[in-house]
């Protein structure tokens, strides 16, 4: 049976993780490879690296990091941040990334989704969508949520699927950082709108929130950052809880 995925997200700036982590046994909490290895051993099913320093001159740093991650990791990982062309994606995929995540660039130029899917296959293309609820309707936002658009979340998800997205990473800006749980009703609507996997993001605060994202939101995967970085939730315990709730999950022995 296909299992639900737990995905820690690492924010990367200039080749280092930011926001900090407080794992006691890490020699260097800023080293993405060390942190990624730690999550892999704990049972993370996949990892996302989001480069928030993604400017042209930083591309090389990111490509080098991707290569180091690929050398150390034996689970899949996605890289996102500032990817706006087939060339951008190619260097990351050639260095060992399994998927690339695109966001603002895809909204500005939706053909990018087709181009990436044609060049590398849909399985490589994650369309990340940041959205916010305004008077009962969800609107897509750009540039890390700073710039609102008139685009409806469901319309955009549908278009992304048609253009060849292999997966959607949906972040609710209303829930992100609140630790009050994922946007389950909207997740459910998304899973009924498109027939590609949905990664839930934004709002994880405790293990029950993950149970809800899978049971009520019907998400295929759930992503979180700080609750994992600050050891508020341990991945092995989270997975045991999910298993007890009869959610299909990969348990490492």
């Amino acid at each position, binding site marked *: *049976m296909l*299992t*639900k995925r737990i995905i820690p997200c690492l924010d990367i700036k200039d080749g280092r993780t930011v926001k900090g982590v407080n794992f006691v046994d890490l020699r260097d909490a800023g080293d993405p490879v060390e942190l990624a290895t730690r999550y892999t051993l704990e049972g993370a*099913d996949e990892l996302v690296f989001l480069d928030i320093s993604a400017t042209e001159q930083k591309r090389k740093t990111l490509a080098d990091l991707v290569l180091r991650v*690929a050398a150390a990791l034996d689970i899949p990982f996605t890289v996102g941040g500032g990817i706006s062309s087939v060339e951008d994606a190619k260097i990351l995929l050639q260095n*060992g990334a399994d998927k690339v995540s695109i966001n603002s660039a895809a909204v500005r130029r939706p053909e990018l989704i087709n181009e990436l899917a044609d060049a590398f296959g849909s*399985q*490589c293309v994650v369309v990340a969508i940041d959205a916010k609820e305004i008077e009962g309707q969800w609107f897509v936002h750009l540039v890390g949520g700073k710039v609102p658009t008139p685009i409806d979340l469901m319309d955009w998800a549908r278009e992304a699927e048609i253009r060849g997205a292999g997966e959607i990473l949906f972040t609710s800006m209303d829930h992100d950082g609140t630790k009050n749980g994922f946007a389950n009703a909207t997740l459910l609507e998304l899973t009924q709108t498109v027939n590609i996997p949905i990664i839930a993001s934004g709002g994880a605060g405790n293990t029950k929130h993950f149970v809800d994202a899978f049971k009520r939101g019907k998400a295929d995967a759930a992503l979180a950052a700080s609750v994992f970085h600050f050891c508020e939730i341990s991945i092995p315990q989270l997975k045991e809880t999910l298993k007890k709730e009869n959610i299909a999950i*990969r348990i490492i022995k």
Partner: protein
Amino acid sequence: MKTVIVDYDAGNIKSLQFSLERLGVHAQLTTDAELISKADKVIFPGQGEASSAMKKLKSTGLDLLIPKLKQPVLGICVGMQLLCDKTEEGDTKGLGIIPAHVRRFPNTVKVPQMGWNTVSHQGENLFKGIENECYMYLVHSYFVPIISTTTARSDYAGLYSVAVQKNNFYGVQFHPEKSSKDGLRLLENFLKI
């Protein structure tokens, strides 16, 4: 022992090379027919769309070479699908080694299947020392149905083949290079054949 990876621009090869390096094997990426013919082990990876992958194979003549190989050959993901007679993806004729018609998952499930699925097998050959109902990482929209040469199966919209074997040709639908310790063990088993 010489291990080669068939080079036809088939996606993420780095992870596969890194996995093999963990096993102490440096696998050369090549399109060279002579190198491939003389290798002890041949790995035939694959990702992306089947018809364009097949076109690339044809452009280098590898479509004629691969079926003639006598040493152990391991097809991975689309590589395994291309070992089959034909695939619904792009209505593509395959290499005709494994007697199967590759089909698309029905829309009753999410397509692509993406993630870790349980794999049931008999613990033989590639699966020696790997627990039954192990987890492997899969990402695919097309599948090989259960056939007489199926050696492992998973369930997604019903049971289907995630590993097949015919003579010296082995195929796995999952990505062993992305499937943690069990995946690495499987690669090790292949190298030991």
